[in-house]
């Protein structure tokens, strides 16, 4: 608990320092950001909307990293999840399948798409010895280019002039709480993903094996645990969660895919997961913090000439600062190898 408070204090401090470095009035700017993130109902929904994809992708990162598979490919898995759902949507939209059924099918297919992308990296690592860091980065490029091609070619809305897929009808979109805001039912999916990830890691045999392989692969092997299988499994789950985030973002917010669908959620998931110490509970808080930064900095951007890009700097500063002071040292071996 003390460590959590220290980290929270460090985050506020790093935010203040970054603002000061950019010559912004610290107090006033932070007030603007707080207002943009928590100031009113609208602000809170904005924060939560950003928190949803961050939480789901970060859960995916946790599972892979806990198994010692340093998945940098959340973005590619996110995109391939969205793409898989879009392929299905192309067929669903003109059909007369009930909305809830179509939506469920799209979400399931997004999990499968992401899992395939992650599982491929897992297979390459265990059967071919290709480092996950390398393969997942490369698979990101493949997925992003695939997205660009698909939205301009096979899945392009024939009626539209811009490279976008068909707009999803409301019946297959995730319901919204209030037509005035963007907050959608994906928040339940995010919460469920966090709870299930926690339950998986700490209350199931497969989750235990996942953690064991990450902490002591030799001990796992010496006790007749098939470490390769565990690793591939972790990458399937990790990719599946990142793909689900893509499906949720697609059916919750975007409604159609364009090249801007790859916004970097899968990349941001890594600092979110690291800041939360790769533990689902703390990672939810970490995702909320990053979500609040997004919402808050949008408000800040309205009053200053600095764009929202400043938040990327703040995020990087926060994570690097925490690693440097060793507050995240309980995961030191992972950080040492991967960062």
């Amino acid at each position: 608990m003390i460590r959590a408070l220290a980290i929270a204090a460090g985050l506020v401090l790093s935010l203040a320092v970054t603002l000061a470095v950019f010559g912004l009035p610290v107090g006033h700017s932070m007030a603007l950001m707080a207002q943009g993130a928590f100031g009113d109902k609208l602000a809170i929904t904005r924060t939560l909307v950003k928190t949803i994809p961050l939480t789901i992708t970060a859960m995916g990162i946790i599972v892979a990293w806990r198994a010692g598979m340093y998945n940098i490919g959340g973005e590619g898995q996110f995109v391939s999840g969205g793409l898989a759902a879009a392929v299905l949507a192309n067929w669903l939209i003109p059909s007369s399948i009930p909305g809830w059924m179509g939506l469920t099918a799209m979400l399931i297919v997004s999990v499968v798409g992401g899992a395939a992308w992650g599982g491929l990296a897992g297979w390459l690592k265990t059967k071919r010895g290709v480092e996950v860091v390398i393969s997942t980065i490369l698979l990101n490029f493949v997925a992003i280019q695939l997205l660009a091609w698909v939205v301009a070619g096979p899945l392009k809305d024939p009626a539209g002039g811009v490279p976008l897929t068909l707009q999803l009808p409301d019946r297959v979109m995730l319901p919204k709480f209030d037509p005035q805001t963007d907050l959608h039912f994906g928040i339940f999916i995010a919460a469920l993903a966090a709870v299930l990830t926690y339950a998986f890691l700490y209350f199931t045999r497969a989750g235990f094996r996942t953690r064991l392989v990450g902490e002591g692969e030799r001990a796992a092997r010496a006790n007749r645990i098939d470490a390769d299988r565990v690793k591939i499994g972790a990458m399937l789950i990790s990719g599946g969660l990142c793909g689900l985030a893509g499906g949720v973002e697609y059916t919750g917010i975007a409604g159609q895919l364009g090249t801007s669908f790859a916004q970097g959620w899968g990349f941001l998931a890594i600092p979110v997961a690291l800041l939360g110490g790769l533990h689902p509970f703390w990672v939810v808080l970490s995702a909320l913090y990053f979500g609040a930064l997004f919402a808050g900095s949008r408000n800040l951007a309205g009053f200053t000439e600095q764009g929202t890009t400043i938040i990327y700097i703040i995020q990087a500063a926060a994570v690097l600062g925490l690693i440097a002071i060793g507050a995240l040292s309980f995961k030191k071996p992972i950080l040492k190898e991967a960062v």
Partner: protein
Amino acid sequence: MLTVSKITKSYGALRALDGVSAEFREGEIHAVLGENGAGKSTLMNLLAGFTKPDSGSIKLDGKELPVGRPFECKRLGIAMIHQHFTLVPGFTVEENLALAAISGPGPIDSRELSKPAMAQAEALGWPLDLAAKTGQLPVGAQQRIEILKALSGESRVIIFDEPTAVLSQGEVEDLFRVLRALKQDGKTVILIAHKLREVMAVADRVTVLRRGKVVGEAPIGQVTSDRLVEWMVGEIPPLLQKNADTKYREGLRATGLSAKGDRGERALHGIDLEARRGEILGIGGVDGNGQVELAEVFAGVRSYGGGLEWEGRPFDPDSRSPRIAYIPQDRQHDGLALGMSIEDNMLIEGHRRPSLTAGPFIRRQRLRQWSSGLIERFDIKTGSAKARADSLSGGNQQKLVVARALDEVPDLLVAVNPGRGLDVKATEYVHRKILDARNAGAAVVLVSTDLDEIGALATRTLYLSRGQIVEGEGAAALVGGAG
């Protein structure tokens, strides 16, 4: 002359060196022989200044060495050739030689800096391709670069840490020629080894360590290999007694068993043996002759060829019968996940138990009860089951491994050097638990390089040499395998 007198060095409760004295003379190849864990490496690290002794002194020509200061020791002429090379694989030979000679900041002229080492190479008649990438050279050639690095610093004492471990037969011969040349040159050559044949071939004098003590020291002409084996591994118990007693029940039976080692080499072949319920089968011999591979096959973690049966049916380590308990040699890596909690480490065994699981789930409450019960019964000294395994002392780490393995009586217990690195009390404790398992009807396979351990526990003993069971009596059986 390098003199060591009454050196003692402890790591926690473990006495790595206990009152060790030795003399290393000029113009002599002096072998320090002993099994793994006997204290050889500790002694060499002390000589090279990497660690400090708890008591005792090290003198070079009557002057006290600056213990614990490796750079000072190196400057005084003590060089060490590590078993694992300290070369930069991506550098050229010249750059690696220069690297060793760099002193202080400033511009670097590799050609100039590598000159002394080059002169040495010439004197030894070694052709060197200075522009070659070091990592692409054969291992023997890389070792030569290590040796040149040591010689260029005007070293007088050169310590070789298991230099032949990585070499091929031809390269070993070359190395021996170098050792003899160094001796001719009046250097003091210290050779750490555990292969008898090599020591007999090249050394002038030998000191044998066992459990941190000097158990023997003699000119090589005055000892036989049998004597050296006895010094290394202790009193040789009666061997190969073919015990036909029927009170033992059928257990594990291997016929024509073979297996490959980690590097794909042939580690075991043509093994026929039986490990019956109610007995402890000791597997002895000099380390590195297939014992660990054999244990891993029985523990179900190494693939094998040939026949292996449990109670007359094909051996299936993943089935409920036999229930296998495994105490691996390297508890810190193979036994435990040091970064996880004690409870999680118990779960390594527990996650397979029906009583602690419900389908895919773990019953946390029962796990907690089970692990605190084990901590109490096996007397593991810790504040909490949630503490990390690396917070335990070595003895308590081993107790954790033993507790996990022997809480329920297994059908088959495979233990590799279970007493290694433990103090007397912890060793006794572990041995008692192994005897308990035997008495309860387990078939026990005890692999140990410590014949005292085998003598104390084993019902009968087989010896492995180069991956095969050797027939023969006494030390003679082991000498064959010592090469």
